[in-house]
């Protein structure tokens, strides 16, 4: 239980979006790390030591620390969220590292995810993609009885598979093209699979794909590294569905004439 390991730790430090970044060697502060600590707790321990040594602690994003909020995520030895399959950084534990192992910690790298500080990146592009259509328009007060819409179990389960996305951005970090296809496809897959989502399907897929382009993400070239890195194991089959829906929508969609009233 009291087992500890020493690590050779290198962490990317960068004070701001346009500042030059570099790796710092924190091996000195990465000694006697309990193997039962999570990776973020390991960074906490290093940070406590850095603070007491008068060094600014490593900035990293995190919140729920139980693998669901999607806020945490760093690249560990070239792999987003580290070496374990289906595991977020906060759920990764130090027992999966060897004593004396060299660890390189870096932020997500993609043009659409500018670095805020150290290991923190700006993922607001994801929010803007959702704003471009990642919703079902349903005003409060207008909803029919919940059982009025019958949804086959299988459809609900499939939609849930896609909806499990936590929006962490590991797919983008893993993709050699810096593409967010898996994220966009998962959100589209969730809504577009459900009957409630069908009326806005074309508008949604065109809007979100367009926003994805505008944010500067790359395109998908079928490497499927996103699926391998995804902590929720979301399938690339959703990308195929997105492609199909997008192609179909492009062929048949005519934007409605925008009227002055409303906020649309």
């Amino acid at each position, binding site marked *: 239980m009291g087992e500890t390991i020493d690590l050779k730790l290198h962490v990317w430090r960068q004070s701001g979006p346009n500042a030059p970044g570099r790796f710092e060697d924190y091996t000195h502060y990465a000694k006697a790390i309990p193997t039962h600590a*999570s990776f973020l707790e390991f960074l906490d321990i290093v940070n406590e030591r850095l603070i007491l040594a008068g*060094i600014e602690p490593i900035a990293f994003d995190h919140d729920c620390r139980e693998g*669901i*909020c999607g806020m945490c995520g760093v690249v560990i030895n070239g792999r987003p969220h580290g070496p374990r399959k289906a595991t977020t950084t906060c759920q990764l534990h130090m027992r999966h590292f060897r004593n004396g192992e060299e660890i390189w910690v870096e932020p997500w790298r993609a043009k659409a995810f500018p670095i805020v500080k150290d290991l923190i990146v700006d993922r607001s592009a994801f929010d803007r993609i959702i704003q471009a259509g990642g919703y079902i328009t349903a005003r409060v007060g207008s909803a029919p009885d919940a059982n009025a819409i019958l949804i086959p179990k299988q459809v609900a389960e499939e939609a*849930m598979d896609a*909806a499990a996305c936590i929006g962490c951005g590991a797919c983008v970090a893993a993709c050699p093209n810096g593409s967010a296809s898996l994220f966009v496809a998962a959100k589209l897959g969730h809504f577009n699979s*459900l009957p*409630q989502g069908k009326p806005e399907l074309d508008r949604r897929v065109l809007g979100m794909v367009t926003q994805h382009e505008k944010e500067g993400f790359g395109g998908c070239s079928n490497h499927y590294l996103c699926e391998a890195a995804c902590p929720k194991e979301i399938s690339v089959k959703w990308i195929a569905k997105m492609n199909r829906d997008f192609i179909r929508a492009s062929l048949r969609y005519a934007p409605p004439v925008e009227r002055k009233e409303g906020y649309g």
Partner: protein
Amino acid sequence: MDLKSNTPTGPIEKRWQNHKFQLQLVNPANRRKYKIIVVGTGLAGASAGATLADLGYNVLSFCYQDSPRRAHSIAAQGGINAAKNYQGDGDSVFRLFYETIKGGDFRARESNVYRLAEISVDIIDQCVALGVPFAREYGGLLANRSFGGTQVSRTFYARGQTGQQLLLAAYSALSRMIAAGKVQMRPRCEMIDLIVVDGRARGIVTRDLVTGKLEAHLGDAVILATGGYGNVFYLSTNAKGCNASAIWRAHRRGAGFANPCFTQIHPTSIPQAGEYQSKLTLMSESLRNDGRIWVPRKPEDCTKDPRSIPERDRYYYLEEKYPKFGNLMPRDIASRQAKFVCDQGLGVGPEIDGVRRGVYLDFTDAIKRDGVEVIREKYGNLFDMYERITGENPYEVPMRIYPATHYTMGGLWVDYNLMSNISGLFVAGEANFSDHGANRLGASALMQGLADGFFILPYTVADYLARNGPSKGVDENHPAVRSAIKEAEARINQFIEVGQKGTHTVDYFHRKLGMILWNECGMTRNEKGLRKALEEIPKLHEEFRAKVKIVGGGETLNRELEKALRVDDFFELGVLMCLDALERDESCGCHFREEHQTKPDPNVPGSYGGECVRDDERFAHVAVWEWKGEGKFARHVEPLNFEYVKLEQRKY
């Protein structure tokens, strides 16, 4: 302090309908003249922001995370209650109301709780319309399950991620309004203070967490939907960033704080593994259906491999003490008994501060009885989660569990309109005290958040605006605004200055504070302990303010500074919690005063004692605390009347 609850009278099932009719409306053309500030983007905040914006108001929304999608509502696993009676098993609005009042041990308002039960039905409709992929039956109808020992199946769920799916639905609705230009979203921005002018909430002071910039935001009403304060204990199941600063700063500006000592404990969390531990993770209580809870009888066995301890040396304390219910004893009793045996020195797992805090939850017998496949089918994902975190295989080695804080029923006092005693300051979700009394039922937190945001605030905020009109005469140069910013600046600078020479990290102090509160104001409380805590906390607070170490300045992203500001508030809140627990000289719900518990009745077989003993004569009320300057508080009381549910003691 003016504590007019504004609860309607008349038949309970008509109260909300009648009240809604009494509430004034705002003309659609005038709505765009109003600006509403919403702090927090969890279920309550996001749904309120989206709905108000859809009605035509301008909304300014804040969250400390990088995106509104990350609020901690996302981590709720179990489900959401609704009195739909889709199963035809005898559920009704009245039954949900009744059980909530009773579950809260008669410390909540009947009118509020009835409204919650009534609205629960609409929430499910709204969420399905927004695309929440709730579990379905083969025929396409919604599935339900029984949750937390209720006799009816009224819980709707989306695998073990109900909170996530509901939050994403609220977030998507909010996103639609952001795209429409009706909501202005400010992520990575934390509320530092409330601006009150002439008794009305007029805005907030925020700190941009990336640039460190302090800003004043002014509006016609302020809604706080900032969640609970469980992190006061340092270790809890809350997200790391969850904090009490928004409600605490509002409290310091005059808002009453109700029932701060009501904090709920969950019995089956994965125990702490070491001092570095940063948070606790819950596991479903359903594990207790098949697992047997025990500790070694002899302290010297506590470090041994549990498999090597013979049956006669195992102490199945719940089964022995309570043969009738055994391992399925209610949450609070199971939690307290775990603490009791661990404090006796029989706990297992790592020793932290001289105590091993953990008990075994053993599936060996269940596996022998049903076979490993049946157990895997039922609990496979929970076992996997346990193994991922602890590195131990629960199919072979008994799990270790320990109780953890996971919800706070206390919060800012609000009236029936969810408005605090500061006019124009509304409080929603876990941040208010309103609906759960002294104990919350499982799967009711999500329900309350969405009820407040989707279905209550849009009416009551409108009424407030219609009655008061647009706020006039307050701009950035108003003395109240300027002084609020100045105060915030001074406070931050103070920490930066002290921080340069400090000797201990923020977490060091936070852990110490948490330990005091967990020991003295946690699962069980007594007068002596509370008095001790009331002496220790202010001392530690003073030390914190003098010796905390913070590296870096205030004009940049500085996580230590953020934490210091939050912990500073936790210290004051901790004092108030102990004070409230001390003054509430009874046991009720989660609040267990050791002085007030039932004794075993020798004439009743299976009688075990250890139950809460309420004192309805003296304490059938809400305790509301007023800030009276540094470390001083005044206690006020809002009496509770029960017309529909008869006051009775819980019996099992």
